């Protein structure tokens, strides 16, 4: 990766006013990138926490700024909310002597497939893949069709590798619904990996209820003694529920790759 020691990095997360763990992976990856000393400065900013998208650029002192959405897919937030709140003109914005480079969301990175497979093996290490349904679960929303497409394309890529007996996707807010996993999967083992950024409200509290492994939303992950008691035995099947893919430490590399990919796609133009 090219030297960015004069550049600034802003990681943008969703954040939450209800769940303290939503912003944790964004800070975790920012801390790792600071440790590596790759950027002159690194800031986190959130839609629902502070610093807000409206104030973060005032905190940045450098004039070459990369903004990386720590979002799992392109969609409503990356296409509408973040550009609007940061007042971006497109992938490259020139403003008051500064250049703001708006990168793709981290979930677009080609290595997400490997991260998902790694997570799936990690949560169910002794389970034979040929007797396992792998279920990639996403948010899905009527506001933007790309949200579901992201999980779909990950599932397709994993399916093509042929290691799992069955690979499918399911969503919270559109069909196929997570709550229907029993009829949409056929194998004795079911490994569920949330294609989410954080173990926040959705992936830690809402989805376990939809899956039937909790009867009501529990306290936040950070306020529990044990993360998960896998496997859960439900209707004669063994269900393994992983933590959100975005909590994977390798995501710091994915963020750096995302910046690198931006530079390849938008080479420096001194005339601009």
């Amino acid at each position, binding site marked *: 990766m090219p030297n960015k020691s004069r550049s600034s990095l802003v990681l943008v997360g969703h954040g939450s006013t209800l769940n303290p763990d939503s912003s944790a992976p964004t800070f975790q990856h920012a801390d790792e990138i600071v440790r590596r000393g790759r950027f002159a400065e690194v800031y986190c900013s959130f*839609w629902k926490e*502070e610093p807000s998208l409206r104030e973060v650029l005032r*905190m940045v*002192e450098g004039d070459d700024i990369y903004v990386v959405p720590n979002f799992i897919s392109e969609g409503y937030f990356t296409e509408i909310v973040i550009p609007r709140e940061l007042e971006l003109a497109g992938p490259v914005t020139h403003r008051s002597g500064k250049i703001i480079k708006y990168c793709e969301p981290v979930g677009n990175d080609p290595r997400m497939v490997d991260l998902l497979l790694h997570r799936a093996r990690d949560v169910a290490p002794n389970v034979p893949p040929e007797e396992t349904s792998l279920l990639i679960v996403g948010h899905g929303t009527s*506001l933007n069709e790309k949200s579901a497409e992201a999980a779909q394309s990950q599932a397709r890529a994993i399916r093509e590798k042929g290691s799992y007996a069955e690979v499918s996707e399911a969503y919270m807010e559109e069909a196929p619904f997570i709550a229907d996993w029993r009829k949409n999967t056929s194998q004795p083992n079911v490994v569920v990996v949330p294609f989410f950024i954080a173990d926040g409200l959705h992936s830690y509290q809402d989805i376990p209820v939809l899956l039937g492994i909790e009867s009501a939303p529990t306290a936040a992950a950070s306020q529990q003694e044990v993360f998960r008691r896998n496997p859960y035995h439900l209707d004669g099947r063994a269900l393994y529920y992983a933590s959100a893919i975005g909590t994977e430490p390798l995501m710091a590399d994915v963020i750096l790759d995302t910046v690198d990919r931006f530079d390849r796609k938008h080479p420096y133009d001194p005339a601009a």
Partner: protein
Amino acid sequence: MIRDELARLIKDGYNALGELEFAESSDGYLLYHSADRNSLPEARVHHSIEDARQIAKYDSSGTYRPLKGAPDLPRGWLIELTDIDALKRALDYFYPGAISTWLALQAGTAHPVCLRQTLNRQTGMYRVTRKLTDDQARNLVTEACRSDGRCLRTILWGIEENQPPDFLPSSKSDPTFDQTGQKRAALPFLCLEACNLLVATARTAVKNSPR
């Protein structure tokens, strides 16, 4: 650099921000809750800047603090920081962007944005907030943003463009006023625009309005 400006402000006598106080020490800077200023030897000592983030995350009962300006920081801790850069970063974890926002306002590079403009640009689930009436808006802001119990930021925006927030107590929009009421030499923690929490509250108010 913002840290140099902070150093200058400290030399000018500023030693507080929100519920915090800070002081120069032989090894750098000390940062603590202002209510602990007379009991620092009993405070739990921290050295990591990131500990500031963790301390700011929960109140004394362990409840999550989604609003950084809420006057409910826990007590009983002391962070020893090695230099002005570390102090600046720690302050940003407690009160994000407070110093840079004040400097930007003074430099004329940042301006208050009225509530109407904030609400009118919302989309998705918050689009409905543009239906908030002026009366609802004034009541909402007066209650949800008040310094005693809700948020210590100093509000510089009004409901409509070029309107001052004259429906609030005058001290709430006075950057020289210490919002904790202690009359310390406090750096202002300014609010240039309604936050997402207020927008979410506006949504609830509109949804609950009689049709």
